[in-house]
């Protein structure tokens, strides 16, 4: 199995992989460095490109070595050797998966370094509202009425009940977004749940953009309200204010980018393994067609999400609508692309704090990805082994 895996990795390097990688790396680097003024936008664009290239590259690489009869005939010697077909196919899938993962990580590194070269990117961390100089937060009392200025020192989160609304003034420089959380707070006679859920920053949804130093009224939007209503009566809506923090140093940013690339790498690995199995069972052209479809859908998805995000940002007063649009579109394409975005971390998770990213990506996407990768690799091995031995060599 390891022999097959190492052969596939060597094959990737020697059959034109090195120059292709250099070109892709340079492309992502240039996009990250020069394709726009905002570091966040450049990084988002570059990581989208990196993810798309990694996915497509992994699909093609998974499928192509089995794409033609000539390529498949190379398997005669391994198949006639004492290696078991499943072991060979599994090794093949793992080798392709490793190549896909490595490609993704390198391209994300290119995005990270490219962005850092021109001043870095904003990453975010939740701030204690009480520490924000000049910030004025007003929220309505129960049942509406006039907003009342009030400061809370409940960590970084300001909690309001579901029938309240909030106004924020005087956002300090560096504060770029707010987002919602819910929690179950103890109320009379009802035990509270200590869990804090994130609303509005679920993967794929954008933070609410607010003008720096400006004024924004944050509505308790429908989705948040629905979540509140479905929970215990004591649930409250929290407002988290994120403060951006520029990470300019290439090294620290490289770490962030590579961390963000992990789910994409797992997605790429999954696709490469799947494509290997598909090519062995069906044919190379079918696997290549699959890769093409994914490419087109991925491009459409990126394009639409970016467009919607820009609309949302430009129309800051209607942030609720922008979020809804984005959620709707993200859901639609995610449905089409099934596991890819969930594995791929295409949610610009750089806008989360590191701790939150660890919690959301490592805690869910990565484990989910690892599980799927394992299942896919075993399936690919079985399917590939069966395909090689029953159809492809005839």
């Amino acid at each position, binding site marked *: 199995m390891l022999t097959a895996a190492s052969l596939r990795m060597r094959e990737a390097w020697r059959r034109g992989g090195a120059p292709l990688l250099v070109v892709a790396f340079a492309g992502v680097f240039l996009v990250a460095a020069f394709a726009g003024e905002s570091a966040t936008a450049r990084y988002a664009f570059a990581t989208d490109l990196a993810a798309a290239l990694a996915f497509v590259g992994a699909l093609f690489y998974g499928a192509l070595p089995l794409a033609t009869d*000539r390529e498949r005939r190379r398997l005669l010697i391994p198949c006639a050797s004492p290696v078991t077909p499943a072991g060979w196919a599994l090794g093949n899938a793992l080798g392709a998966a490793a190549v896909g993962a490595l490609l993704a990580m390198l391209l994300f590194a290119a995005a990270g370094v490219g962005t850092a070269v021109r001043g870095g990117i904003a990453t975010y961390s939740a701030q204690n509202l009480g520490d924000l100089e000049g910030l004025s937060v007003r929220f309505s009392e129960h049942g509406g009425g006039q907003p009342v200025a009030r400061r809370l020192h409940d960590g970084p989160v300001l909690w309001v009940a579901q029938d309240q609304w909030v106004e924020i003034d005087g956002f300090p420089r560096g504060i770029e977004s707010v987002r919602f959380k819910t929690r179950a707070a103890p109320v009379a006679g009802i035990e509270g749940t200590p869990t804090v859920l994130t609303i509005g920053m679920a993967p794929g949804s954008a933070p609410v953009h607010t003008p720096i130093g400006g004024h924004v009224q944050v509505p308790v939007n429908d989705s948040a309200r629905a979540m509140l209503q479905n929970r215990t009566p004591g649930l409250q809506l929290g407002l988290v204010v994120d403060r951006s923090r520029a990470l300019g140093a290439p090294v620290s940013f490289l770490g962030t980018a590579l961390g963000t690339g992990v789910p994409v790498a797992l997605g790429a690995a999954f696709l490469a393994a799947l494509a290997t199995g598909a090519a062995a069972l069906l044919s190379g052209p079918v696997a290549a067609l699959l890769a093409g479809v994914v490419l087109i859908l991925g491009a459409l998805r990126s394009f639409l999400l970016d467009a919607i995000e820009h609309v949302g940002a430009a129309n800051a007063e209607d942030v609720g609508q922008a979020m809804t649009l984005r959620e709707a579109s993200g859901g639609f394409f995610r449905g089409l692309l099934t596991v890819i975005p969930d594995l791929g971390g295409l949610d610009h998770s750089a806008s989360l704090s590191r701790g939150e990213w660890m919690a959301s990506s490592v805690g869910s996407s990565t484990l989910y990805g690892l599980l799927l990768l394992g299942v896919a690799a075993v399936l690919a091995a079985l399917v590939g082994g069966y395909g090689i031995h029953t159809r492809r060599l005839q």
Partner: protein
Amino acid sequence: MAAITATGLVKTYRSLGGRTSVEAVRGLDFNVERGRIFGLLGPNGSGKTTTLHMLLGLLRPTAGEIRVLDVPAGHREARKRTGFLPEETNLFGFLSGEETVDFVGRLFGLKRDVRRKRTEELLQRTGMWETRKRRLGTYSKGMARRIGLAQALIGQPELLVLDEPTSGLDPLGNREIKDLLREKAQAGMTILLSSHLLADVADVCDDIAIFNRGKKILAGEVQELLSSAERMVWETGPVADEQKRKIEAKLTEEGVQLYGVRRARTTLEKLFMDAVRRADEGADGG
């Protein structure tokens, strides 16, 4: 004792929907004795390669049975003891010659030092040591064929299966490979080869079977099959014209039907090899 036993072997290829089918092998029986070189002959599409693939376990027979080294064909035990050179040199072009042989050694589970030692021996033996670092994609067909043979031998197999082993080789390489096969057979290895090159088969094989349209139409020992009870050949030293006339007259007098007398001819292969050897010696000498 037979190294390979095929009984009632049938292979039918069916299209995906099962609407069309092609019978590649039709009721084949043959045995290959241990330590012999057995040649499979036949025109294109006669079922040679299909038969080889079935005995390697790459294809399953539609009917019949094939046993290799006392176990069913395709059994891991049989594959461990079998070396294989496929028809075309379908090797991995991105590996070097040395890496290719080493890679197949890994497939056979050989330890690193054993692989290294055997790889060197085989590359020396097949004349590929000097060019071992070059990638296979840059080799000529004959060079790739030699590497193919080296990889087939890395596991020190009891059975060697070769599909067109001498195709693409120059006469010198052809001779070397045939000598190597002879040497391996003398050491007890069983060799099964298929070839279009009849002269090569006649030269190296002990036994042959001729296939046509998936059936065996002729089989036996090469020497026996090629010798004729109808005609005799005497080889002599130089004979003067007068002596020749006397011998012819004597033979006629004895009632022997004489079809012709001609000067002995060397083979083109021998002529070529002698010429190349002389040229090489001349170049080395001066």
